[in-house]
């Protein structure tokens, strides 16, 4: 298969990633090159094998859902816009 600049535009929209028109063809070439290369995987003998998501198959460590430390000042210090304990975003409704 071959991805077109239009496909890259659709992927970028899914990823909420702006891509200039001039870059669409470049990324299409790069991603196609990668996708062609990884296509060797289709021939791998994986019938009957369960997918492995992580090499550490021990159960995940869980901890009590308790707030240990919280500093609202530090929490908001890296935000461009905030007010009254809320992050500000452009109006959505």
């Amino acid at each position, binding site marked *: 298969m071959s991805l077109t600049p239009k496909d890259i535009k659709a992927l970028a929209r899914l990823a909420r990633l702006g891509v200039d028109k001039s870059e669409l063809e470049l990324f299409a070439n790069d991603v196609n090159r990668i996708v062609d290369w990884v296509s060797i*995987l289709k021939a791998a003998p994986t019938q009957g094998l369960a997918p492995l998501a992580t090499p550490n198959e021990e159960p995940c460590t869980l901890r009590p859902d308790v707030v240990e430390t919280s500093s609202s000042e530090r929490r908001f210090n890296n935000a461009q816009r905030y007010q009254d304990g809320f992050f500000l975003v452009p109006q959505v409704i």
Partner: protein
Amino acid sequence: MPITIVDIHKQPLTTLVDLIHQQKLQASEVTDIFLRRIKAFNSDNKSFLALAEPAQVLEKSALNAKLPLAGLPIAQKDLFCTQQLPTTCGSKMLEGFMSPFDADIVCATAEAGGVLVGKTNMDEFAMGSTSENLYFGAVANPWNPDRVAGGSSGGSAAAVAASMVPLATASDTGGSIRQPAAFCGVTGFKPTYGSISRWGMVAYASSLDQAGPIARTAQDCAYYLDLVNRPDSKDSTCAKHTRTASYPTIQAMNAETKPQYFNNKTIGFLPTWLAHEGLDPIIGQRFNDTKALMESQGAVFKPLELPSLFYALAAYYILASAEASSNLSRFDGIRFGHQCQNPKNLVDLYTRSRQEGFGSEVKRRILTGTFVLSEGFFDAYYKQAQKIRRLIKNDFDKAFASVDLILTPTTPTTAFTTGQVSDPVEVYLQDIFTIPANLAGLPAISFPVEPHQGLPIGMQLMGQRWQDTQVLALAHAYQMQTQWHLATPEVGEAL
């Protein structure tokens, strides 16, 4: 009684710790030597992206002299969150970001008496093999400034190689500790996946990312590992069980009158990798030299067939890109990170902030990851890559039933010229020998062997999961027989 040691900056961490604890050196005077080297060389070398205030470093150094890390300056890779210094991950996206908390490895280092001296340069979001950071500047290889330092932990490896710190932290998703260690002639250790906590390490590919040290010796790596490797309830993938200390094994080896650690060790090797078309013949020759030395000390080598490794690199790039596209979705321009000017609406804020904040390799991986996770392609790519991961793990399990460790080259070539490689797949092929350990979660170390034409070469030892001590001990046994790990580039010999 204080003594003068020539070339203090070239001494391994554990030697410096011993000398400070024995009060033969003062912690602050040793630290001052490293600070002066950083000041003299960082503007050319670009190992560091941020530096702590020298007066504060010296003050803490003196206070911590009796602690395990003896007040020595330790560099943190710039993807470990620190409250004291910015954490940028080498990206415009996080320029100026001040973390509200410290990563667990940063806390553990401080508790052990290490002093944060600076944050090291890296490929953006740890995606790359060169540390040619486009936004903050490329790291120069201390052995030859026209060559790359490797990546993604290029700043950490270069800082240790140039004797600007005795140890730096790093992270390894597909070889990012071992490959730059090999290119810079230092020792880099990737512990078993799930050992050192990932809390506060900016995530690239969560099922592959593992923190670890870069230092001059395997002994230094073992000493540091024991101090920072601990269960952590804040990282759900950090193993709960109590760790076995590695350093006592190293100390016992040092006490032996006749080193015999290679005796009764069976080491696997991969003839198909040694016949790989991309392998520089000199690296193959160095592999044979390393094998011969280990055999002369009593090790038995056994050829291995791991057919699934043919698929490892491609499977890795699917899994890593998929996880990256998910992990990096947190950079939305709202709570932290770069925000675009005058957004028209919320979607415009997201898309333009991410467009302006991320570099091209990060965008390429986000797009690739989004593709392999998308409807219609998920089973063919992502799920198939996960099945191959199972195949690879099974192959390693079988191999380790008959060998203790596996020896391979760390990289197919020596450090390449800056700007030489631009094709993404060609860059990815650099990681061919390091990636399998990440897919299977194995501990692996890169240690320096004889250089070639002034450029360092690294060999890699991989072990079974949680056999970190055995990996470190065998690399230490090699370093007890050789001096390559003590070679340093001619950076600031006059200082």
